[in-house]
């Protein structure tokens, strides 16, 4: 898909993304501490079922299970040297679940490498990693690329550049927290200026995902709208994660989430979905609420 095509679709209507993948696979039996990318290779049918749940719930765009499929992350997970293979398999699985009903986004998460002063990684190292993954996703036939959960603007810009070089449409969302002086990443990048920098760098849509609940996300989207004219992405969590004896639990209801999704669209978001803890039930509720609200 060409970037203009995505932009045209977004002019027409709001596009619904999918919800959480890692948390969904964990509830399907993925062992704690194991990288979700393993399941592309070991249990493709379970990954496909998760995608299908989202397609049936009404997602227009589904993320392939490649959030942690950059070379450094794969190496840390024990899948060193298998970037091309893992990304190709994941896109194929997502494509099987989507058929013509939804688009497949190649998902790129942070490399886990940290730039100074926090770590010793270099921008060049990151750029190489993102190029390798973005090219693998494009080669495998992803319709667009979605960069998510970025907490360092420098890394987000490097990822965006590598993704744009494939010629596919590129979404970039960063993860912000609510601090005394506004919304910032843990590295201190402010929301408005960061999204503006990403839009200037040519991202087709920019926004926020993870870390916060849908009610906080509504405020973030309002600020994003004031800062950029590019289409805005919003993917909040299903409330705050809590540790229980059974594992991690999230406390928001699909209904409350769906109400906030409508508010996010009213605040200016054009691509809405969920992050950690959200399930097909959340997306189905959001789809219904958007229909009822009559927003386009």
């Amino acid at each position: 898909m060409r970037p203009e095509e995505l932009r045209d679709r977004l002019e027409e209507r709001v596009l619904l993304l999918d919800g959480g993948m890692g948390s969904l696979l964990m509830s399907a039996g993925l062992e704690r501490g194991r990288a979700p990318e393993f399941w592309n290779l070991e249990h493709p049918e379970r990954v496909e079922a998760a995608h299908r749940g989202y397609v049936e719930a009404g997602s227009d765009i589904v993320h392939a299970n490649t959030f942690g499929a950059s070379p450094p992350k794969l190496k840390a997970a024990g899948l060193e040297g298998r970037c091309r293979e893992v990304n190709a398999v994941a896109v194929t699985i997502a494509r099987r679940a989507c058929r013509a009903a939804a688009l497949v986004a190649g998902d790129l998460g942070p490399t886990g490498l940290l730039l100074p002063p926090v770590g010793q990684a270099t921008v060049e190292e990151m750029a190489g990693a993102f190029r390798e993954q973005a090219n693998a996703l494009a080669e495998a036939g992803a319709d667009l690329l979605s960069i998510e959960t970025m907490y360092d603007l420098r890394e987000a810009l490097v990822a965006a550049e590598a993704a744009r070089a494939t010629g596919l449409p590129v979404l970039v969302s960063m993860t912000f927290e609510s601090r005394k002086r506004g919304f910032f990443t843990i590295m201190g990048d402010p929301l408005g200026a960061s999204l503006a920098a990403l839009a200037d760098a040519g991202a087709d849509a920019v926004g926020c995902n993870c870390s916060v609940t849908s009610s906080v996300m509504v405020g973030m989207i309002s600020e994003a709208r004031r800062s950029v004219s590019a289409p805005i992405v919003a993917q909040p969590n299903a409330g705050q994660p809590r540790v229980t004896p059974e594992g991690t639990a999230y406390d928001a209801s699909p209904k409350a989430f769906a109400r906030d999704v409508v508010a996010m669209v009213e605040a200016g978001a054009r691509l809405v979905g969920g992050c950690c803890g959200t399930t097909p039930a959340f997306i189905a509720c959001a789809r219904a609420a958007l229909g009822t609200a009559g927003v386009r």
Partner: protein
Amino acid sequence: MTEASEVLAALSRAVLEGDDESVVGLARRALDGGLTPLETIEQGLVPGIRRAGELWEEGEYFLPELVSSAQAMKAAMEVVRPALARHGGGGELGRVVIGTVHGDIHDIGKTLVGTLLAANGFAVSDEGVDVPLERFVDRARELDADLVCASALLTTTMAEQRELVGALRRAGLRARVMVGGAPASREWAREIGAHGYADNAVAAVAVARRLVTGEA
């Protein structure tokens, strides 16, 4: 202002500002000027790092500033530690293994606790951040540790603290376990079978003393 209090204030400021160059010279000046290692740590370094932690809590500092402060603190400790050993702070109280659990890279609280334990006479082996369970267990065995301290700053990583208690028990080690970090609590410590919990670094020293001396 006396020379001593001036050096201590400058030391605090250098840590707060993450100035890991001038902090080394200031630490030397403090020791050369007759301050004890414990005074240098507790009245110079600790107020600086504590203030950095407060600014983080208040939303003024972000990870880069916080890490820079922690690095300045570490650089100063390199200077102070040998002096500490000469002053008999060389660990007669007990042996401690400390680290931030696997999957978590929060450094500052753990480093502060480790530093204060060392300053108060424990022999501390700081394993850093993102420490796998096996490493905690191996080090506790190697050192015949009295105490293992595990820090977790995320609700998603605190479960590692529970795993650690089990892993040490299964390994048959005698070390007691102290947990800390924002999501931890006294109730959490009790629930997972940890022996102690502290909600700040000063309290951690008191808890550690109690745990290794076996009093109450």
